[in-house]
């Protein structure tokens, strides 16, 4: 067996977690460094994986397989293809920057970083496993630390938001759980291994329809699909900065990834059956999320609802059931992940300095802090789909596919992008231009340590905006084989 690179990526945060648990809580800096080292290990390996990954091979690579619970068809299997290689990279980037951004956390440092690493090991696990048991296991591992992160280190109505988020997500996972077990009980199955299921099980069209609906609803909750999105803005707002970054940047992508990896992979007919419904829901996401965002005064709520709107684009791409649409969806997942992480990293910094996120109480910040303002504006421009940014390519691909498949929905979604431009520009104008609020006279700009993580995120956005071909090359064949099978 070759070097198990996927498990090593997974082990990085887990080893870090155990080291942190063993460190006495008074060594706060040591704890921070352990967290940083383990996340940079994971990042380095996931970048390395992008280089050694063979894009010309659409099937699973670097397969690792260990028998776990034999009699229930549970194997510990990891594999990588175009779908998850990009997601692993995204997770690596966001956690690395998240740890750096939360360097300034001082309350219960040990618990904070332990939770962060625990969460991210769940996320890595979901993205690399090809067994439904482990998929579910890692998925819930990613949800529970979120509760603690919000409830202990959060702000703004945190108890309500944390409980709402957890119950919603677990309701979604309950549907997933039931769906997985139903698949397991089908004739010929008796395994949770995705590849074996795909080969051995013949899903009747009735099963396809019911199962896909159940799984879609389950994953849809996490992907913030309308009308199950209500947990997400509250959760984003209440969470501490790094948790918001991970949450909006990576966690929401788990849902969309699940739809692709499990639901569409196993049940393509079911997906076609419900595609129109998904497209309509996705349009609701795009339009409704953007409309609500125009009415918000709290910067974090604006970003929260913009995430709902942008996840709609991902879902719309999936709903087209075409290679271009899938590519757009995946690209949007990646660039939206980086973009929201940047958004939250900026807002977190502004909130720490000004102690408010209300648009009316901010103003003129670009005079005092040009760098953080520039970062926020870059994220904003990416959000409204400026050419040269990652999101532009993603939205273009999705729109092309959507207009072809669902002309009305596709064109409406283009119009909705104008609303996005409106609220992003209003927010930028109110917060960073105009007269400076005298309360924020002492607001200081980023120092080098705080500059670094945000700069990485900006660099990613611009790099993939200018060279989208790099990204498309990774995913192209895998999305194609997803439809061809």
């Amino acid at each position, binding site marked *: 067996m070759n070097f198990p690179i996927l498990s090593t990526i997974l082990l990085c945060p887990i080893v870090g977690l155990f080291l942190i648990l063993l460190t006495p809580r008074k060594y706060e800096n040591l704890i921070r460094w352990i967290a940083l080292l383990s996340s940079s290990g994971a990042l380095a390996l996931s970048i390395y994986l992008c280089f050694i990954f063979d894009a010309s091979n659409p099937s699973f690579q670097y397969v690792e397989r260990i028998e776990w619970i034999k009699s229930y068809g549970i194997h510990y299997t990891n594999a990588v293809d175009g779908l998850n290689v990009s997601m692993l990279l995204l997770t690596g980037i966001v956690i690395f920057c998240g740890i750096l951004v939360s360097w300034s956390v001082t309350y219960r440092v040990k618990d904070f970083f332990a939770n962060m690493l625990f969460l991210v090991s769940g996320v890595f696990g979901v993205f690399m496993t090809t067994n439904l048991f482990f998929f579910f*296991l890692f998925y819930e591992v990613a949800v529970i630390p979120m509760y603690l992160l919000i409830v202990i280190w959060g702000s703004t109505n945190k108890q309500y938001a944390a409980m709402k988020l957890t119950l919603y997500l677990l309701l979604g996972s309950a549907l997933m759980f*039931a769906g997985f*077990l*139903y698949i*397991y009980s089908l004739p010929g199955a008796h395994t949770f291994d995705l590849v074996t299921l795909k080969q051995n099980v013949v899903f009747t069209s009735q099963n396809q329809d019911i199962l896909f609906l159940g799984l879609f609803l389950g994953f849809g909750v996490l992907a913030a699909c309308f009308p199950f999105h209500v947990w997400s803005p509250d959760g984003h707002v209440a969470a501490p900065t790094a948790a918001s970054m991970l949450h909006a940047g990576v966690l929401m992508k788990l849902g969309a990834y699940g739809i692709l990896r499990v639901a569409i992979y196993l049940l393509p007919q079911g997906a076609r059956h419900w595609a129109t419904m998904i497209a309509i829901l996705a349009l609701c996401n795009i339009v409704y999320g953007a409309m609500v965002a125009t009415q918000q005064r709290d910067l974090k709520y604006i970003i929260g609802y913009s995430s709902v709107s942008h996840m709609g684009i991902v879902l719309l791409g999936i709903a087209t059931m075409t290679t271009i649409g899938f590519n757009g969806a995946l690209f949007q997942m990646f660039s939206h992940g980086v973009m929201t992480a940047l958004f939250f990293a900026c807002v977190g910094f502004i909130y720490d300095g000004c102690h408010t996120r209300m648009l009316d109480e901010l103003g003129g910040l670009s005079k005092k802090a040009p760098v953080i303002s520039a970062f926020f504006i870059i994220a904003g421009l990416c959000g409204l789909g400026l050419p040269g940014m990652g999101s532009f390519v993603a939205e273009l691909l999705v729109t092309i596919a959507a207009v072809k498949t669902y002309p009305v929905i596709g064109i409406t979604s283009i119009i909705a992008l104008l609303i996005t431009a409106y609220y992003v520009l209003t927010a930028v104008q109110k917060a960073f231009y105009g007269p400076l609020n005298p309360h924020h006279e002492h607001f200081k700009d980023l120092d080098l340590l705080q500059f670094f993580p945000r700069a990485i995120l900006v660099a990613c956005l611009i790099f993939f905006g200018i060279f989208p071909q790099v990204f498309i090359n990774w995913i192209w064949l895998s999305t194609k084989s997803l439809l061809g099978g």
Partner: protein
Amino acid sequence: MNLLLFLPETILLIFLTLLLCLTLLKKELTEKMLMPFVGSFAFVLLAAAFCSLRVSGDLFYSTYRIDLLSQGFKILLSLVFFFIFLLSGESVSIQKERRLEYFFFLSTATLGMMMITSSVNILTLYISLELSAYSLYLLSAFKQGRRDAEASVKYLIFGAATSGFFLWGFSLIAGLAGTTNLLEISKNVPVLITQPAFSLGLVFASFSFLFKLSGFPVHFWAPDVYESSATPVTAFIATASKAAAVAILIRILMLMGLTHAFVIILGTMAFISMTLGNTVALVQQDVKRLLAYSSIAQAGYILVGLLAGSFDGYTSCLFYALAYVLMNAGAFMVTVLVAKASDHDNPQMAHFDGLADRSPFLALILLLSLLSLAGIPPLVGFTGKWILFSSAMDKGHWFLVLSGVLNSVVSLFYYLTIVKHAYLEKPKTNTPLVLSMPMKLLGLFLFCAIVFLGIFPNYFITFAQTAIQQLGAF
């Protein structure tokens, strides 16, 4: 006769006799000697249970069967006994001068439960059920106060009623089969199954086991008894008693088989147990009462696995029983220590405030055991629930599985509420909660068990499979 066959029970019998002798000594001397004495015996009992793990055979004219199922459960019961011994030292509500009686009845209850797991005759089964039940009635009245006596009387009356049902049901079965030997009866099941009286008898008899498991419709005693008993006793009822009930349910159901009607009745009970337990638990403030309702809900999950009636179903039930004992033990350990720290034997949610600041380790144990009860990975409760539900789904019980998983979401709300109190609320006193060395070790043991069995369950699942294979062919 092989001495090993009856070893754990023999040890307990010797221990009981010695305890009686101990009462003859001077009072001060007894008080001084008691704890080390019980502790060493609990240890010997555990060792004996391990020694006799792999033996098998029949005793007492085939009324008593020693096999892997019974021996496995005996280890579990001795573990629980050891655990309760450790907790009893920390409890506020068991007075020093009554400790001897307390341990006496604790041991008789354990003896009864061990015998339950081995009984293959209606008579031995009845005797062992009553032995454990009467000891528990007495134990639950160990705290002084009117309210506690009320709960104990309630327990007694309900228990007596269900054991009446037990006798009625089994008298029907024995009358039809012409024997009291369960193994003989099981050979005649294909003939007997056509008789309505047989099914009726089986349903009546199972009330008695459901009572121990605190499942609907015989769950009413649980909240009151849990609330008013001394906390270690509650812990004992919540762990040992449940384990014994699962053991005997597995044995009886495997011998008698599941008819369609029986599955429907059990399924309804499972559904109501889960839903009722979880719904009512949502509004509880008293932690022990809350855990009682959670145990009613858990009884429902276990029933779902049992009525799958398949090899996998029974295996997963066995595994889940182990998981259930571990995670409940964790929850009760924290409850006992919080009760001790606040000098209040009925800790409310508010008593858990700021536990994470006062003792991070204890808060972690609480977090893990509650999340495990809610079925959150990678803990043992999750793995247990996964295999439990997947074997039920395999047999087409999709409705029960769906309501089971939805119920788990509901249950998370109240488990997280306790967690929230422990991690979020400000403590009323800032004095750190210091753990004694045995408690630290116990906590560490439970921590490791809950996490590692969740991630690496394969050994124990294989063990459970071997145990089930010995019972019958599939």
